[in-house]
């Protein structure tokens, strides 16, 4: 199998067994994979446990774009990033987990920035309902920073 594979290409296998042929330069944007390649403990096929085909495809799409567009205008890449990370919460969670576990810094930064944008300026009440799955407002013990900054949340 490896003979038919072009040079500098790697195969990534997702947790559900699907295989992706990816240029090495793209794959090593994951520091975890980079370490494996450098230590030569990786055969041509690298298993990516805990990441299913759906999410792995997204991560590869992101890395490919970032690899290609090194020379491109930074603003274009930013637009791509913000569109890329604009997903439902579940996909977002899976992507963050994958990016963190595989150590893909650019992706993790973009995703965290996106979550931060969603939280920014929102009241505690809002964040609890939207992200933490709270339905009823649980009154917390008083906290003086809360009093200083959060009094407007009760408006």
């Amino acid at each position, binding site marked *: 199998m490896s003979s038919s594979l072009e040079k500098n290409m790697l195969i990534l296998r997702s947790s559900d067994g699907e295989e992706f042929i990816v240029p090495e330069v793209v794959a090593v944007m994951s520091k975890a994979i980079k370490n494996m390649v450098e230590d030569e403990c990786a055969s041509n096929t690298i298993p990516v446990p805990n990441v299913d085909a759906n999410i792995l495809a997204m991560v590869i799409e992101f890395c490919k774009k970032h690899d290609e567009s090194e020379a491109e205008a930074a603003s274009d890449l930013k637009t791509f990033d913000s569109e890329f990370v604009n997903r439902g*919460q*579940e996909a*977002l*969670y899976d992507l*963050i*987990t994958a990016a*963190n576990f595989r150590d893909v810094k650019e992706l*993790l*930064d973009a995703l*965290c*920035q996106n*979550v*931060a*944008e969603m*939280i*920014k*300026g929102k009241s*505690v009440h809002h*964040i*609890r*309902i939207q*992200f*933490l*799955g*709270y*339905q*009823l407002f*649980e009154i*917390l013990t008083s*906290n*003086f*920073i*809360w009093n*200083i*900054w*959060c009094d*407007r949340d009760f408006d």
Partner: protein
Amino acid sequence: MKDGCGITSDIISHLPDNVKETILMCLPIQDAVRTSVLSRKWRYIWVKLPQLVFDYTFYKKSFRKTNNELLMIIYQVLLLHHGPILKFTLSLPKLESCSEIDQLIYFASKNGTQEFTLRIWTGTYKLPSSLFSCLQLKHLNLHSCMFKPPPEFKGFSRLLSLELREVVITADMLSSLISSCPLLEHLTVESSTSFEHLEVAAPNLRFLRCKGLSSSICFKNTPQLARVSIYLNKEVLMEGESSNLVMFFGSLPVVEFLELNGYYVMGMAAGKVPKTLPTTLSHLKILELNDICFGEPNEVSMVLCLIRSSPNLAKIKIEACTRETTAIDPVLELSVLLEMEDGWGVYLNQLREVEMRYLSGIRSELELIKLLLVNSPMLERMLIEPNSEVVLDKGFRILKKLTRFQRLSPEAQITYYDPDEDSEDEV
């Protein structure tokens, strides 16, 4: 769902702490601290944040609090905070010089701060000695402070970037500060007051930006300096000597980007303008000249000298201005114009992009455009923008002349920018 009583699952609380921390780092400090009341899992996440930024966003989000109230909040945050503070920023609008700042700096210095920003808005604040003991500093950014280190201060041995704006410091002190930061890569000095003589000895310096500064800059040891921007104030120039302004290029062997303003170019041209600089700027790729007065033959001549000394230029950007000119020597003016008409016999083989802005359409401007067109075989794009205050016919006259100029590069496109219509037209 283990805690809470919701129906949807808790998406973000289950993320690893390092990810939560990355998320919090993208938030203004208020929002970050506020997460402590979200749930038990979030309570102590923010307290380990390695960066504390109290800046305009913090100020704006604090709903018209006085500076004393803001300082009180900062104290509370610092009391609760735990662990290293790698980045500390204090830049509140209207922040006056006061002794509380000493305590904050002391706190930051004890907690391993590597990136420190302080902006004072009213008055000049004398930096406390605790700042000078922050030897782990990598980035230092100061605004309106008085920089007077204790005698035992030996420099910041790990400092990579230094930005000083309106900082009270003597030229000697600044020179010795620069030379005592051996790793320094990035230096910005902006000041409305002037220095007599600044010496830059920084073996790792790559980026230098000086504004309104010294009438004489001496580069002692700058083998890696690649990007240089220098803006002179007029007053500074009149006091100082200008002859050594030209000489410093010899100490910039690898300069790639050079940005100068008209007063500096004028200063360089004060003596007799040489044909070429003593050293060829063979690495120079981008030359940006701002506020160049094309009515001054000396200045134009210096611009020519700079271009001629930089054979590998890829981009030239010139912004013209109309300045009150002193009596112009007509002989000199003619000789400069003739020089341009004769052409160079030197080709700018790498030149791809030219921008000429705020043109008033006088002869020396047009001659320079002609010269660049006829000597640049690889030129791809030339942008022309007239100064709409001076040019009344929407630049029609300039356009008419432009169309007659020969272009050496078959690819050369001339783009004409009409400032009134905010659109670009191809000629």
